[in-house]
């Protein structure tokens, strides 16, 4: 029995003539302890897919099975790191995480919960900022709080929806390493949604492209057989890496072209000539 199973998922928004089918015929199986990345263009329905898996949305048809049980609601077993942090702005870093652990471990005493909060804040190295509000933090720090919040609930599976999309390259690299560290420590199952092929190759065991929506569906999977722990600089010379990267990008380019040729709307451009201010 697979750990997570998506069987013939279709998701349609709206009803009747105005409805759009965002996802069509999505099939995916994940084993326990696996790290899978789904790569897709922006607007291809990635967030919808994530929300179907974490239980915020229900599929129009098909079923999501988590450990063999259909997903009908959100669960503490599946932790989510949102694309836009989604921290509550009126709570401090510590309070944001405390709120989550209190829900996840309702039976524990306050002292133990506080200890857990401090532990996870320290893990993302934000201890000095524990009493600050999200507004006072930089984007990277906020995302680290979101990571700490998701992990402090001790979920079996981590679902990440473009968690690093809004960050600069340097912070992004650091956080990738942090997430990989945490993941490898107790081998949780992880699903990463991203638009960055390099990020996917660096972090995941498998990469699956999502063809752009409407009617988005999953493409053929690419296995990444690079030994862990992976080294970013060394990877650049790894022939396996180069091959995988090229084939994924080629595939994405092809479906991108396909999408372009599908659209037959012709835009009429106004006739404008640039005016020279030099003369």
């Amino acid at each position, binding site marked *: 029995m697979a750990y997570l199973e998506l069987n013939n998922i279709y998701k349609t928004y709206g009803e009747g003539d105005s409805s759009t089918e965002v996802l069509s015929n999505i099939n995916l199986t994940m084993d326990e302890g696996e790290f899978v990345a789904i790569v897709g263009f922006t607007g291809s329905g990635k967030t919808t897919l994530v929300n179907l898996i974490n239980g915020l949305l229900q599929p129009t048809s098909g079923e999501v099975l988590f450990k063999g049980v259909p997903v009908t609601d959100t669960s*503490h077993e599946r932790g989510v790191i949102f694309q836009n942090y989604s921290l*509550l702005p009126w709570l401090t870093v510590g309070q944001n995480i405390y709120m989550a652990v209190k829900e*996840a471990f309702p039976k524990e005493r306050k002292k133990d919960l506080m200890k857990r909060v401090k532990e996870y804040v320290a893990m993302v190295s934000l201890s000095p900022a524990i009493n600050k509000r999200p*507004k006072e933090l930089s984007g990277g720090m906020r995302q680290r709080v979101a990571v700490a919040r998701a992990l402090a*609930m001790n979920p079996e599976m981590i679902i990440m929806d473009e968690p690093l999309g809004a960050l600069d390259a340097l912070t992004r690299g650091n956080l990738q390493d942090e997430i990989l560290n945490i993941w490898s420590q107790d081998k949780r199952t992880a699903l990463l949604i991203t638009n960055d092929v390099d990020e996917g190759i660096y972090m995941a065991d498998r990469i699956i492209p999502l063809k752009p929506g409407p009617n988005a569906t999953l493409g053929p999977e690419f296995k990444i057989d690079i030994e862990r722990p992976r080294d970013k600089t060394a990877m650049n010379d790894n022939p396996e890496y180069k091959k995988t990267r090229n084939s994924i990008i080629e595939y994405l380019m092809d479906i991108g072209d396909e999408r372009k040729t599908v659209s037959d709307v012709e835009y009429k451009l106004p006739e404008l000539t640039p005016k020279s201010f030099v003369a």
Partner: protein
Amino acid sequence: MEQEMVLKNEKSLSSSLKQILSKLTPSIKKDGIIKSLKNTGITLLSILLFIGLWQMGSKALYNKEADYRVEKALQERGEEAAAAERACIESGDSSCQPNTLPSPSQVWASLKSLVADHQVIRADKAAFAEKMAVTNEKMISQGKDPIVYTGRASFVDIVLTSIKTVFAGFLLAMFIAVPIGIIIGLSPSLRSAFNWFIQIFKPVSPVVWYLLVFMIVKTLYIGDSSDNAFVISFISVGLCAMWATLVNTAMGVASVDKDYINVAKILKLGTFQKVFKVILPSSLPLIFTGLRITLSVAWMVLIAIELLAQSQGLGLFVWEEFQNGANDSNSKIIVAMFVIGIIGFLLDRLMLAVQNMVSFNKNEMA
């Protein structure tokens, strides 16, 4: 060489001293002081300009009325009467003063007389309490109501009554509008059910609210001889002013960021927790904006409602002075106007301070 070193040291010492000094009195602070001085100067200047214009305007109105009176005396009773009238006006005798917009100095004099009057009444009250102390003790021990002072209310008492009425009305508005607003905001079907109600009752005038409340309270107080003017006026003020809070609360609750709702779902918060830990905190800024509008509306409608309800507040004071038509009545009305304006301004500042305290994005508040 050595000398050079010493010089250098001195230089660095003086420069570090300068640094310390500049840290102690940062240039921003200096600019700030100059800026605030400039702002105060401009404000003072505008106040002086306002008083000057007022003085000129009241003088012009005074002259117009004085001339008219003299002219009228001339036409009706001949030259002698006209001269007498002019002499009377110029002498400043209170019997023949033009009754028009008072000048700033007259208003100031009225304010002083009102304060003096307050002191007289206060002394009177104290004397009364002293005189009655023994009797009242006896009456209380006999289980009867003590005798209370029933003399004229002083200006300060009147202002206090008005503030009390506004606060009672404001609290009433808050206790009605915030809970209902939350419930309406949470449920779209209730929102559409209540919408007609809000749309119809929101624009109703304060006077009509007063009449409505009067109809109801009068019947409720039937057979009770106690004074219900205060009750009627604060309920009317509350009902008039609560709409801004109701609409803002409903809007704030209904428009909570979808991300926060998703967080609540992912954390699996219960309904109670979701409302009190996510929805309410995120709509607090809008609720307080509503409460701020409510307080200023309450203060604005207060005058009209107190006037109608015959409640011993500023509204009644203004109306009675107008009916009175005494020599200093007009200037007393202007005093009341300034007191109303200044208290309204202070109340608004108070609410703004509270609003800034509870809001989590301080930069976005005006």
